[in-house]
């Protein structure tokens, strides 16, 4: 992102901001280059942290680097001591509190949680070395060399790139590469698949080095010769690379910056790694060895090397696989206890009590104690882990309705498939871009490319707005049906238009109480609309670029948005600035979903990873890799344990949140999957795609089939069963209508929506 703005347009103020940012967060120097738009209100991130002490930033960085080194060398005690002495306790939370996921806290912006620090420090070092500046290098352990520099403190784009200014005979590059290729081809089968992972990052970095050093012809020849060897799922990135032929181009290219600022993560078994290391050292192949050391992060594990299939299922993301530690944090994926409202009378009393002026804090407390007496799901977060809005009377009524409906719910399964009712949008020539249903399926909202948002009522009940102020003053306020009287019958209609955006509306979401509607758009705003007055209430400005998706929390009040600026933001409806910023994705955040317990947020991105963020502290607690294309939809299972994701590659992947593992792959769609939804009881997953089909999958079987033994959980090596065909329960073709939204009613009727596209 930084790169985008780095063009001719006012580069100066930007630099200023950058320095500011780095002064404030010395812990995360990777910030600016890591993808956060520098102009973003960085201050908002600081909700957790006190504004950084005015310690000299260079000194702190030195300290940090040392800490990093200690940690790498597993000298935890000394690290702890040093930390305490240096008074860097708040950083503890940073790099250790969330264990590996550390640096992500508060939107620190380190691309990979850990390497956010290390890599940027490193790249600066590398740059410094190249420019032959003096640097006091510490002896490095096998893989990374965290070094301390005294020089410049900001990894400017140029510096990042400067890491490439290495000397080396360009003619020898193909020789090196094919030498390595020959070596890897000749090793034992079991190691070959693992070592082959090195090819792609190596190829890219070698190519970039050639381009940077202005060996254009050689670079082109190198690319032509070897790009065919790369895995096909890197094709999109290769296409971008192929266009990049001049060193001037490298400055503004985001993809390239991603590659540079974040280390490509590989998981290789110790044996394979030793093999590679020995080979490279024997051959004195420093060129390749340098690249591996500087640009790759090799996550070594003990045990059997992985098979080709295992590797393929996990790779594909922009920056390699997730590190093992990245998925180790504990996630409370259980559901919150439902407040007891079986006896409505009782509850109303309680509510009345509360309203009468008891401090608000009391309620959650009560809840949590109450739930403990019942058997609490051990995986559920504390009821009061994040403050949730109190239930209103209307919410309770709705819950009761919900429960009533639930008793009439159809039990689904392979034997009893759901009926599908499809809502086709006709005459939507301007382009339907987003759809949402309310939870009780009474309203439908559509976002269109012509900036409009429309709301339909799908029940016979028409949409009514509140009367105008003048008319309202005439109403008898004491009458029983005052709530009825304030509604304007005259203007009631089946659909209402909401005007306000100035660009295509890409995401839309109803609040759980059906009073509000959120929409986000290309115009970089998120808007909150009232469904009482059908007017816009707030425009949330914070994203500087198109906002791709937004969603209300299942408990209302909070909402999440994500956009082209690579940051997902958590908002509360009554704050005009975001409460949290989740940064770490290397490309656009394309979709955002709340966990059913509202304590976590999942984001899918164009960097082909999915991240799970903790709402409480902003940490990234899960990174899922395995998709081969930008992710366009996510869905949590109703029990909160599983996550499903769909991408442009047409595959749907299933994830176990607790273990942080991929547990299933559903193949069948031939085009982007835009809609995913679990049935109310979670037995069936429905997926809708650009290929005009709705498919139903047997999730019970998919989840049962996997056996997550301790070994798999510990190593993260998964073998996916090839059973997509068995899991597919049905495939229903629409008539030239891409499916862009799916929704299960409370009785488990499946609703679909899409625009007829002749």
């Amino acid at each position, binding site marked *: 992102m930084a790169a985008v703005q780095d*063009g001719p347009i006012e580069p100066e103020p930007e630099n200023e901001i950058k320095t500011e940012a780095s002064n404030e967060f010395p812990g995360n120097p990777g910030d600016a280059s890591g993808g956060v738009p520098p102009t973003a209100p960085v201050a908002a991130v600081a909700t957790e942290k006190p504004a950084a002490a005015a310690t000299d930033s260079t000194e702190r960085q030195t300290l940090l680097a040392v800490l990093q080194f200690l940690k790498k060398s597993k000298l935890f005690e000394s690290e702890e001591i040093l930390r305490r002495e240096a008074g860097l306790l708040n950083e503890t939370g940073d790099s250790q509190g969330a264990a590996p996921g550390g640096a992500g806290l508060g939107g620190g912006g380190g691309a990979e949680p850990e390497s956010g620090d290390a890599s940027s420090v490193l790249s600066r070092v590398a740059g410094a070395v190249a420019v032959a500046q003096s640097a006091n290098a510490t002896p490095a352990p096998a893989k990374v060399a965290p070094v301390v520099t005294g020089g410049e403190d900001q990894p400017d784009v140029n510096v990042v790139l400067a890491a490439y200014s290495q000397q080396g005979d360009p003619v020898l590059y193909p020789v090196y590469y094919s030498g390595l290729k020959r070596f890897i081809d000749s090793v034992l089968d079991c190691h070959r698949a693992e070592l082959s992972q090195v090819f792609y990052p190596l190829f890219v970095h070698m190519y970039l080095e050639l381009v940077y050093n202005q060996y254009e012809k050689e670079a082109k020849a190198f690319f032509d010769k070897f790009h065919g060897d790369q895995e096909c799922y890197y094709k999109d990135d290769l296409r971008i690379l192929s266009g990049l032929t001049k060193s001037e181009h490298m400055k*503004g290219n985001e993809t390239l910056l991603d590659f540079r600022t974040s280390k490509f993560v590989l998981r290789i078994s110790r044996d394979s790694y030793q093999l590679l290391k020995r080979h490279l050292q024997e051959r004195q192949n420093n060129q390749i060895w340098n690249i591996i050391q500087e640009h790759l992060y090799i996550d070594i594990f003990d045990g059997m090397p992985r098979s080709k299939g295992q590797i393929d299922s996990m790779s594909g993301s922009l920056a390699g696989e997730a590190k093992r530690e990245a998925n180790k944090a504990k996630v409370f994926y259980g559901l919150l206890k439902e407040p007891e409202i079986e006896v409505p009378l009782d509850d109303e009393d309680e509510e009345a009590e509360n309203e009468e002026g008891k401090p608000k804090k009391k309620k959650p407390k009560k809840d949590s104690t109450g739930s403990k007496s019942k058997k609490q799901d051990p995986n559920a977060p504390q009821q009061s882990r994040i403050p949730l809005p109190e239930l209103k009377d209307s919410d309770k009524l709705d819950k009761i309705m919900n429960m009533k409906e639930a008793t009439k719910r159809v039990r689904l399964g392979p034997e009893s498939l759901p009926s599908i*009712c499809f809502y086709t949008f006709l005459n939507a020539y301007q382009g339907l871009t987003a759809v949402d249903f309310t939870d009780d399926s009474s309203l439908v909202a559509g976002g269109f490319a012509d900036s409009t948002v429309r709301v339909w009522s799908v029940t016979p009940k028409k949409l009514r707005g509140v009367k105008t102020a003048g008319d309202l003053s005439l109403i008898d306020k004491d009458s029983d049906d005052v709530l009825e009287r304030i509604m304007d019958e005259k203007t009631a209609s089946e659909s209402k238009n909401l005007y306000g955006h100035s660009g295509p509306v890409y995401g839309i979401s109803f609040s759980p109480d059906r009073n509000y509607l959120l929409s986000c758009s290309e115009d970089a705003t998120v808007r909150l609309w009232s469904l009482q007055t059908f007017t816009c209430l707030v425009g949330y400005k914070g994203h500087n670029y*198109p906002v791709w998706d937004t969603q209300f929390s299942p408990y209302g009040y909070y909402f999440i948005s994500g956009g082209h600026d690579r940051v997902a933001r958590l908002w509360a409806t009554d704050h005009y600035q975001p409460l949290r910023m989740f940064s770490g994705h290397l490309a656009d955040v394309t979709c955002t979903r709340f966990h059913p317990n509202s304590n976590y947020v999942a984001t899918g991105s164009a960097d082909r990873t999915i991240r799970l963020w903790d709402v409480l502290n902003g940490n990234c607690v899960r990174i899922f890799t395995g998709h081969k294309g930008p992710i*366009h939809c996510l869905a949590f299972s109703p029990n909160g344990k599983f996550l499903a994701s769909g991408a442009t590659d047409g595959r749907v992947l299933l994830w176990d949140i607790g273990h942080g593992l991929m547990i299933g792959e559903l193949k069948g769609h031939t085009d982007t999957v835009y809609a995913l939804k679990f049935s109310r009881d979670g037995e069936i997953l429905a997926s809708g795609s*650009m290929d005009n089909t709705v498919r139903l999958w047997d999730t019970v079987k998919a989840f049962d089939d996997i056996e997550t033994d301790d070994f798999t959980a510990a190593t993260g090596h998964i073998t996916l069963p090839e059973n997509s065909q068995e899991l597919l329960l049905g495939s229903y073709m629409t008539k030239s209508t891409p499916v862009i939204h799916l929704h299960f009613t409370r009785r488990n009727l499946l609703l679909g929506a899409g625009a007829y596209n002749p």
Partner: protein
Amino acid sequence: MAEERRSKLSNTLLPTESMKAIAESIGVSQMQEETCQVLSEEVSYRIKEILQDSLKFMHHGKRRKLMTSDIDYALKLKNVEPLYGFHAQEFIPFRFASGGGRELYFYEEKEVDLSDIINTPLPRVPLDVSMKAHWLSIEGVQPAIPENPPPAPKEQQKAESTEPLKAVKPGQEEEGQLQGKDKKKLLEGSAMKLKPRSTHELSVEQQLYYKEITEACVGSCEAKRAEALQSIATDPGLYQMLPRFSTFISEGVRVNVVQNNLALLIYLMRMVKALMDNPTLYLEKYLHELIPAVVTCIVSRQLCLRPDVDNHWALRDFAARLMAQSCKTFSTTTNNIQSRITKTFTKSWLDEKTQWTTRYGCIAGLAELGHDVIKTLIIPRLQVEGSRIKAVNEGPIIGNIDKIGADHVQSLLLKHCAPVIAKVRCPPDNQEQYRVEYGYLGPMLCTHVVKARAQAAMQAQQVNRTTLTITQPRPTLTLSQGAQSSRTPSIIKVPSSITLPMQTLVSARPSTPTQPSPPPTKFIVMSSSTGSTTTQQVITLSSAQSSVTSTSPVTSTVPSLQPLVKLEGGHTQGAGPLSGGGGASRTMQKYIVVSLPPAGDNKTLTPSLESNSATSVKLERDDSPATGNQSPQPSH
């Protein structure tokens, strides 16, 4: 996967000539080659970058097509001013020109006469977005309703019927291609194809439907019939019932020919037409039943009880058109339908003893097959036929029937041969010369040819005009269609052929209480084809009592000369071929302008357009009336 891997990524660059051309266009001349080179690399890279960004917008817009607006947004992302004025709705009509060793693609901007635009009535406001619900699946089963795609796609039906071997012995052909590369897949494939072929059991609902439909099709209520035919022509779930329908038609024709029941024969032919119009059905497997029935209706010696009064000629014309259509759709090198049909027709035509009725049928059948057939088979025989007609007309009066027959054959020949001769012969049209060449029919032919030429000239002039008058945005066209059919602008085709047979029916049995028919409606079907010729036809649908024989010639003056609307009164007695032209003062009229989107859409109409404009025009005419019936176009 392997293939994907092999696909080459190449770094394409804009040619340096473009750089030069662009530089010249903004007044920078004499660019150095080196500069151009650097520029083109830079520009190519930037363009790629922008395109990659605009793809994001396409994906989020949930489209497969990249739009100009996506590029605008991508430019905005880079803080670049978007390009204004490039909101092409459809394709960008680049024209190609070459000459002087240069190839050029340019955007053609026509000169537009403002007064034409001002005088054109405003296009209708496009319909608002609306939402329609339907059942995509009911407890796991997809119901066969028009909103859902057909259960057995047409391609599959076609594959099953045209390549039965492939279906029975799967993998034979594939084996060659695969070479055991992927044996597992092969095995799976065979397992898949062993599933039982389509069963022919009908559900209770389907049986009920079949009964209702067949009864309505041959019943006395015209409104019901129209509905039934509409259903046959559009319903996607009829695949299972196709064998029943085809038997029904074939048996029906067999019985009713013997009984000379003209009305029923017409109904059955309309069913055939409706079946052929159904976009989800592939009739190949049932041609053995349908073709004999259709051919019977073309050439049978007697089709009605009173051959001197009843208009069985229209039925023959109609059936001939059906025949031609099925030839075009289904004729392959293996079944040779077209050549077999041609032989049949020719054989009975050449027979001296053939009656006038059959003779008429044979000629009509041949003529509908296209210009080439007319040129090679009919025109050489004009002289012979002319003398035969002469014998009837000038010889001793044998019977009224023969006289009528000869008259019809004569007008038929004139109608079909004139356009062909107009194309084949070079202008000076000399009556004497024609007499020498074509015998008795020569002089008449000559006048027809002259007319045909005049028409062609008129059309050529009107090319621009046509494109102008149609300012309907494309959405409006498809509107009435809704989600009903997957074929793009095919509303024009959806309905069945009501015009001709209905008129003849009415005339045949004047006593039948006619349904309250809508006021006469006119359709102007305009299509601007890709080529230089633009056809424009005036279509008349006068559903009230017009007298025998008259209407078909009226409509057959196609392609019409009239630029705009030809008016014809609703209750007037049959107008002559051109008499409607000046009748602007007659009673109230309706006309509806239906514009066919240019280019590719023509192909969807019928493949016949290219080869035989006359045929296609008529097909369209048959189609259009019902469009009016169902489309919400405002009439005035």
